């Protein structure tokens, strides 16, 4: 690659970590309007919104847990995966030095923190896809440990929940996952759901679905209806912000369906905390822009 994109990718990390996307902030504001003034839920949402503003103004990570940096890269024929990967890793290290990321890569056996956010081939997490396009598009998702820990995968049929291999079964297990999470995923959160796949691809797809446009409609009508129903019913659980009780537990649900084996029917739920940190960088010729 001719250009060094390292500083540009570092900027992508800075924006993602410190400036929440406008549609997320809007949903948090709407959630605040639905809570009883003076309640614990109301206090929590006020703190959250004030915090979002402060983080943006001072360019400081919205949340101290800057999570696993998850990159989804779509790159043109003319570029090489190796070059992009090298620059992403350098940018991650640079962003850590500048305190846009907390050092988060810990050796699982020794417990040693690498200090740079660089671990093995799996950390940071980078997904590549080559495209018939001249543009390079890098999506970044920062997903913290609290919400990652409450993610869940179900193998249907699930006897305990009486969940069969259909959308009604999907609805049941997703609501069960929201109940089990309580406030621990930093509610009010967002749900990414994958139906199908194997254990690995189902988890990957449940995260990739977080890259869809906030107001983008699901092309499948049955899934579109199910998304709305799950969001509505999850809020009826009354878990509320931080699990304090309240009206807003889930601010949005996105569902994707991927092919599965005849014998398997996995439903995977990824939970994204209210600090839904996601940004996109596009490189086209000499132009670079962020959204």
């Amino acid at each position, binding site marked *: 690659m001719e250009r060094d994109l390292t500083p540009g990718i570092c900027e992508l990390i800075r924006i993602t970590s410190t400036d929440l996307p406008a549609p997320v902030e809007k949903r948090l504001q709407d959630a605040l309007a639905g809570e009883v003034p003076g309640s*614990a839920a109301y*206090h*929590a949402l006020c*703190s*959250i919104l*004030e*915090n979002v503003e*402060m*983080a943006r103004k*001072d360019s*400081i*990570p*919205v*949340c*101290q*847990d*800057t999570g696993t940096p998850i990159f989804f890269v779509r790159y043109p024929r003319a570029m090489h995966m190796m070059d992009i990967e090298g620059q992403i890793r350098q940018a991650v290290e640079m962003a850590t030095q500048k*305190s846009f990321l*907390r*050092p*988060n890569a*810990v050796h699982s056996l020794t*417990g*040693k*923190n690498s*200090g740079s956010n660089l671990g093995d081939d799996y950390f940071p997490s980078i997904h590549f896809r080559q495209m018939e396009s001249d543009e390079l598009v890098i999506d970044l998702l920062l997903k*913290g*440990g*609290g919400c990652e*820990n409450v993610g869940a995968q179900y193998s249907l049929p699930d006897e305990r*929940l*009486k*969940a069969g291999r259909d959308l009604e079964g999907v*609805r*049941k297990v997703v*609501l*069960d996952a929201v*109940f089990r999470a*309580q*406030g*621990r995923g*930093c509610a009010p959160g967002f749900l990414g759901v994958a139906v199908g796949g194997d254990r690995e691809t189902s988890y990957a797809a449940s995260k990739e679905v977080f890259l869809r446009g906030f107001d983008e409609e699901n092309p499948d009508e049955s899934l579109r209806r199910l998304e709305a129903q799950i969001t509505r*019913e999850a809020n*009826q*659980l*009354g*878990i*509320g912000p*931080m*699990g*304090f*009780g309240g009206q807003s537990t889930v601010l949005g649900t996105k569902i994707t369906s991927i092919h599965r084996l005849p014998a398997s029917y996995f439903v995977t739920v990824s939970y994204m*905390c*209210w*600090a839904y940190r996601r940004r996109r960088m596009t490189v086209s010729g000499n132009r670079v822009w962020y959204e």
Partner: protein
Amino acid sequence: MQVELHTPITDEEILALHAGDTVLLSGVVVTGRDAAHEWLYQNFSSPAGNPSAADCAIYAELKSYLDRGVIYHCGPVVSGLETRQYRFLSAGPTTSIRQESYQADVMRLFNLKGVIGKGGMGQNTLSYCSQSPAVYFHATGGAAVLIAKTVKEVLGVYKLEWGVPEAMWVIRVEHLPLIVTMDAHGVSLHERVREISWKELDRLIG
């Protein structure tokens, strides 16, 4: 009810708190999460503990900060690592339930009057809170910049070799906003919400 508290905290102040109260906390607080709780338990609570002289010295210093004090489940983003002019940039709570098996013992070691975290804790901690008395304070998860602004000074750090998030940071806070979610009267807001949501879940999928 909104209450202002300052560490060290008295039993009377703790007993006056009820689940749902909002608190503004000032004074000295020490951060500690997974590594700290395990280290404290294994060296100083467990009968098999055999701490080194260096660890005993750290423990003695921690005691001076934590008697009737508060531990905070937090792994912050800190600047000034090279110059040791530490400053807290982003410092929200981490999930507390991971410390459940150690928490009551760690609270007993220091005579802690409070624990700050998020997500609430279990029956052991709740029972200890009633006996001691002590409370569990919930900080707003992810409101990390807002919380860091209340950290006026970093007084010191122990076990930085565990990495920035796991190290024990001694900080002075002013008006740290918290909500009592487990009080010294046996009430846990988390249990209450769990029961309500369980009934609703049963109605929706049962």
